[in-house]
């Protein structure tokens, strides 16, 4: 059996001492930044990116992925105990998690979200192992036109499905594409948007961009606002035991959440936050008694938790099969692969099976570690939750700048972080989403290259994009997505308008 051989290879890779240690390190850091309100996983991943330059690419991805899905587990802790989401995807867990804490059922909530997280992850890992390899072999036949079309769908999806205004999402993506232009043009060797600064001839440092945009902006926006001083709850193991009713009520929601989350995670640009919101909305709709929601309904925490963990895992499907990242974190993962000289795309699974199967196995191991970290060691995380933000934020800034500096020992990179931090804060004030920008930045050079190549093949005929069936399908999906966004936002506006007129 090929699958058994592959899994054997995967576990042999993931269980090597170094990979096991990095997996443990990754999920622990992920838990930590997930638990701490005001510290995002993108900032943490970009902080640790430089550390991965010195290890094998598989090890690097094991570490970075561990932070990503570890944070999904940790995010709900602060939501439940403090009514303060550790990261955006956990915001919806506040709705029913915090009421459970006030009823004195915080332990049960923490236990059930951990189980739900595990179920969601396991569900999506099976999907990843089952569907990624066949998908990748289909993608092997893709040419430049297909790639261009998929990337257009990915970028348009990222900008329209992100929270906030769709036009601003589009503008964010384009600003990202422009930043991606900076440096040497691969086709002609010409310097573009470099303004004679030799330092940027290789392009803008992605870590400096990500840390400025996410890390520094986050700190500026959160200083003096994050208050976790009232977190003094003690959680005993006994208080974590759920009742039979809790378990019975949670089974179906966990499975529904896993399915919804896996689906949303595969979509380009949708992200884990949307997955958990959708799962919550669905539970509320199918519930016999929707009025229980918001007052400590256990389905209201288990379904979204399964969904965001499933989405975090299934997001790897497009990333590893097509080389097209669904969100900004996946974009950084691809950045890490490229730094190691591996071209992301459908050949990753066939040419470097140890990376793909090693990752799949490490996801399983990492999720098992997270179960242990979350259930017997929960009191450790509860006490970490009490670290005041006034101590945390100077430390975060420090680790950001040291991380950036250590990449090239270039102090210019540090100054660039400040510049992107300022830009990021301005965009934050205007409510431009930073995630589509980073996605545009990563995909920009690939998008341009495939566009040029397609038209070189077709001798300048734009028809190539609609004559080839696969690229035509993706472009048609893009058009549908745009049309749907326009219609739904017009409807919303009309309703808003009507209610304003009624009120006025």
């Amino acid at each position, binding site marked *: 059996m090929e699958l058994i051989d592959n899994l054997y290879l995967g576990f042999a890779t993931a269980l090597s001492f170094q990979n096991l240690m990095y997996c443990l390190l990754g999920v622990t850091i992920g838990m930590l930044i997930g638990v701490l309100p005001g510290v995002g996983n993108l900032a943490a991943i970009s902080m640790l990116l430089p550390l991965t330059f010195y290890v094998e690419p598989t090890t690097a991805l094991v570490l970075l992925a561990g932070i990503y899905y570890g944070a999904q587990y940790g995010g709900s802790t602060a939501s439940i105990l403090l009514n303060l989401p550790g990261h955006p995807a956990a915001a919806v867990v506040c709705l029913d998690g915090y009421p459970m804490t006030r009823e004195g059922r915080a332990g049960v909530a923490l236990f059930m979200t951990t189980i739900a997280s595990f179920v969601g992850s396991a569900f999506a890992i099976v999907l990843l192992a089952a569907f990624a390899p066949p998908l990748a072999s289909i993608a092997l036949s893709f040419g430049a036109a297909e790639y261009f079309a998929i990337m257009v769908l990915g970028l348009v999806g990222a900008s329209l499905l992100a929270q906030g205004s769709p*036009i601003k999402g589009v*503008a964010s993506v*384009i600003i990202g594409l422009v930043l991606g232009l900076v440096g040497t043009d691969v086709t002609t060797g010409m310097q573009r948007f470099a303004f004679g600064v030799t330092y940027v001839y290789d392009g803008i440092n992605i870590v400096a961009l990500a840390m400025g945009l996410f890390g520094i902006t986050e700190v500026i926006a959160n200083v003096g606002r994050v208050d976790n001083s009232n977190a003094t709850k003690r959680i005993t193991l006994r208080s974590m035991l759920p009742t039979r009713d809790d378990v019975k009520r949670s089974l179906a929601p966990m499975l529904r959440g896993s399915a919804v989350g896996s689906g949303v995670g595969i979509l380009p640009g949708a992200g884990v936050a949307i997955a958990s919101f959708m799962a919550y909305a669905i539970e509320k709709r199918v519930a016999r008694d929707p009025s229980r929601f918001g007052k400590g309904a256990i389905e209201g925490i288990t379904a979204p938790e399964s969904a965001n963990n499933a989405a975090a895992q299934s997001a790897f499907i497009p990333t590893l099969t097509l080389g097209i990242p669904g969100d900004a974190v996946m974009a950084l993962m691809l950045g890490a692969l490229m730094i190691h000289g591996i071209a992301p795309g459908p050949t990753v699974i066939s040419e470097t099976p140890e990376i793909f199967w090693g990752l799949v196995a490490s996801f399983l191991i990492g999720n098992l570690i997270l179960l242990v970290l979350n259930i017997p060691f929960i009191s450790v995380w509860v006490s970490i939750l009490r670290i005041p933000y006034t101590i945390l934020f100077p430390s975060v800034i420090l680790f950001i700048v040291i991380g950036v500096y250590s990449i090239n020992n270039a102090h210019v990179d540090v100054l660039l972080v400040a510049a992107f931090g300022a830009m990021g804060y301005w965009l934050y*004030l205007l409510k431009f989403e930073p995630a589509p920008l980073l996605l545009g930045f990563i995909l920009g050079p690939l998008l341009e290259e495939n566009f040029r190549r397609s038209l070189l093949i077709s001798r300048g005929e734009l028809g190539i994009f609609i004559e080839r069936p696969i690229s035509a399908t993706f472009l048609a999906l893009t058009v549908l997505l745009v049309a749907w966004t326009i219609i739904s936002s017009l409807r919303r506006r009309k309703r808003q308008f009507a209610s304003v007129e009624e009120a006025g």
Partner: protein
Amino acid sequence: MRVDTREFLSSLTTLLIGAGVLWEASRYSVGSLYQMGPGFFPTALGWLLIGAGGLMMVVSFKFTTGPLDEIRLRPLFFVLVSVVVFGLTIEPYGIIVATSLLVILARLAQPGLPWLGTLLLLLVLSAMVYVIFIAVLGIPFRVFPWR
């Protein structure tokens, strides 16, 4: 006529970036669809930004998305200055001095934090940086001004 401040500023920002991109892109040759020059893609992006900015301008006169948040000048200033000062001091004075200055400046971002706490944090973080990056990872940073 009322205009929404946030949407209006967003539109201006987008239009300005678009204009800047077009201006710089005009120095590169555009070429044809068959053989694109280095200017083709940037020019297209510039026009897309102008289009998006224009659309936002229309929106800003029609709809309101609520008031603009206050610009948090104090954290903005001190956080950015702490980063810049770190960048400027790490090479001439070493990582311990740079770390200390960063912690002092960053803590000023929130008013009224006790100086004793800043001093303790500075000592703990300097020790951590020394142990993690110099002793364990062995990254070749300059440590002190004299080394």
